């Protein structure tokens, strides 16, 4: 095996291991492998380890086995956090898909102004999340925000509302801001996928007399399938675990109305100092994300 690693095997010209000794492959990949192991895999297992304790990370480490997992479902707001997160994610990702797909299809052609539109429509992604949160906090400000003032002058509402402080409005407003912030990523990935579809596929269909809708259904979607699944999966996981925008906008409030699961975990850790329970919640979130991955792959990515 060592001789093969060093590229000294008796191989035909086709097998390039004499020119490209496999050993170097391992060496070149080593920095990434080591870093990912220590910075991702190890913390993962460590997190699971913490979830078996009742701890404040400093002085208290009481072994609890799996009872934390029972506790979070019975005696905490975890289920509420999960429900809020599911609602949040479905709406955010759903609209990302619709908007992203529409825009990607439109931008897929060559026309005057294509570049300008691309740059403008990408802007929300470029701004930091906390900046966007601050901006919309200002726009939806109960006293001086432009949203209230505009609606009032149009006669749509009588009094200024506290959009982010009102139970009925907080979650929808937060969802809107997240849709605004996040659609560019979906749009970009879908656009990249669309541009990879060779023009021949379309031409063959047009010669056969296909119209726009048929082309979309029978050529575009199947060619886009793989990219679509990956984009949706990444977007779902990304927004299911989301934290920053919502935290700066509402801090999870009012009450628990916008406490999505990551904010819930934060609260459990830094307000209640129950790191063990928080870790248990994290593990459950991890399992849920894996289930998403499996569902997406099985149901949608049949190649």
């Amino acid at each position, binding site marked *: 095996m060592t001789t093969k690693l060093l590229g000294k095997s008796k191989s035909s010209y086709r097998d*390039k291991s004499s*020119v*490209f000794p*496999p*050993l*170097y*492959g*391992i*060496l*070149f*990949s*080593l*920095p*990434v492998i080591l870093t*990912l192991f220590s*910075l991702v895999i190890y*913390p*993962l297992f*460590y997190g699971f380890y913490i979830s078996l304790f009742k701890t404040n*990370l400093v002085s208290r480490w009481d072994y609890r086995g799996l009872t934390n997992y029972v506790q979070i479902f019975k005696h905490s707001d975890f289920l509420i956090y999960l429900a809020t997160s599911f609602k949040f994610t479905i709406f955010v990702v759903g609209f990302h898909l619709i908007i992203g797909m529409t*825009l990607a299809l*439109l931008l897929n*052609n060559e026309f005057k*102004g294509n570049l300008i*539109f691309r*740059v403008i*429509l990408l*802007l*929300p992604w*470029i*701004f*930091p999340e906390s*900046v966007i949160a*601050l*901006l919309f906090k*200002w*726009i939806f*400000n109960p006293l*001086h925000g*432009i949203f209230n003032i505009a609606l009032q002058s149009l006669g749509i509402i009588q009094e200024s509302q506290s959009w982010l402080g009102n139970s009925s409005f907080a979650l929808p407003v937060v969802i809107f801001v997240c849709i605004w912030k996040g659609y560019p990523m979906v749009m*970009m990935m879908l*656009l*990249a996928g669309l*541009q*990879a579809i060779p023009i021949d596929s379309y031409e063959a269909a047009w010669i056969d007399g296909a119209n726009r809708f048929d082309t979309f259904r029978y050529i575009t979607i199947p060619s886009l399938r793989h990219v679509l699944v*990956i984009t949706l999966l990444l977007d779902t*996981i990304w927004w*299911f*675990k989301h934290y*920053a925008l919502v935290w*700066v906008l509402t801090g999870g409030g009012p009450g628990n109305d916008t406490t999505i699961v*990551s904010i819930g*975990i*934060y609260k459990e*850790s830094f307000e209640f100092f129950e790191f063990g329970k*928080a*870790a248990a919640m*994290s*593990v459950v979130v991890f399992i849920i*994300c894996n289930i998403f991955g499996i569902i997406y792959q099985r149901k949608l990515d049949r190649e």
Partner: protein
Amino acid sequence: MNKYKFSRIKEKIMYPMIRYLILSFFSLLVLLPVLWMLSTSLKTSAEAISTPPSFFPKETTFIAFKRLWKEYPFGTFFKNSIIIVFVSMVISVLFACFAGYGVSRFKFRGRKAMSTFVLITQMFPSVMLLVPFYSIINRLGLINTHLGLIIVYISFTLPFSTWMMIGFFRSLPTELDEAAMIDGCSVWQAFWRVVLPLTLPGIASTSIYSFITSWNEYMFAFILTNSPNMRTLSVGIAELDGYQQILWNDMMAASLIASLPSLIVFLAFQKYFVDSLTAGAVKG
């Protein structure tokens, strides 16, 4: 008019018009808040909260921008962000290039597993790593330090960067470095002198992605720092309202400046970004 003329009208006039309409609608939805941010930042604090507000400031002033550097630790936030983001970006991209070369040229056992492994780590919810990272960084005594955040940011940007660079290297034909090595180059030289220069577009877009992701990051910067002089920009500006009363023109000015590096980086390299998404990452 006959059917032929009508369908030509549809193609040449109607569809393009619909396209411009839809694109303009969404562009407006994007630009209005951004321009409002700009407009507020150029007002005096009194005018910012006056009613009725106007889109154009009655009195354009840069006073908010000047105050940023004097009355808030804005310069400190900026410096912290620059150091942390730059260092983590350079290391991430470097490692990603190494791995890209290794995986694309050398057949070693576990090669396929490695690509899959990188893809999977990308999908981990970062909130999962909140508690363990906090605990680990705490034990290492790296809370509230640059190094602590650099390490954490590398863990975010490395998976996607590696994935992108692997895709990029794969799209380069192996004949080039093969020929170089047959001519006597060492593996390292072939990598550094022959192949790497060709991946500059990939490096550019991977760097953009790393930079923007880290620059904008909030959650871990928030949790792993606890004193104002260590805060990054992203976190610092969200907390500006703790200093006195909220002066919205200051906040908007701060927001604008905080976004500038990402904007500049993006605008300078944007043509690489879409191209590389097509060339590298998407072709699985």
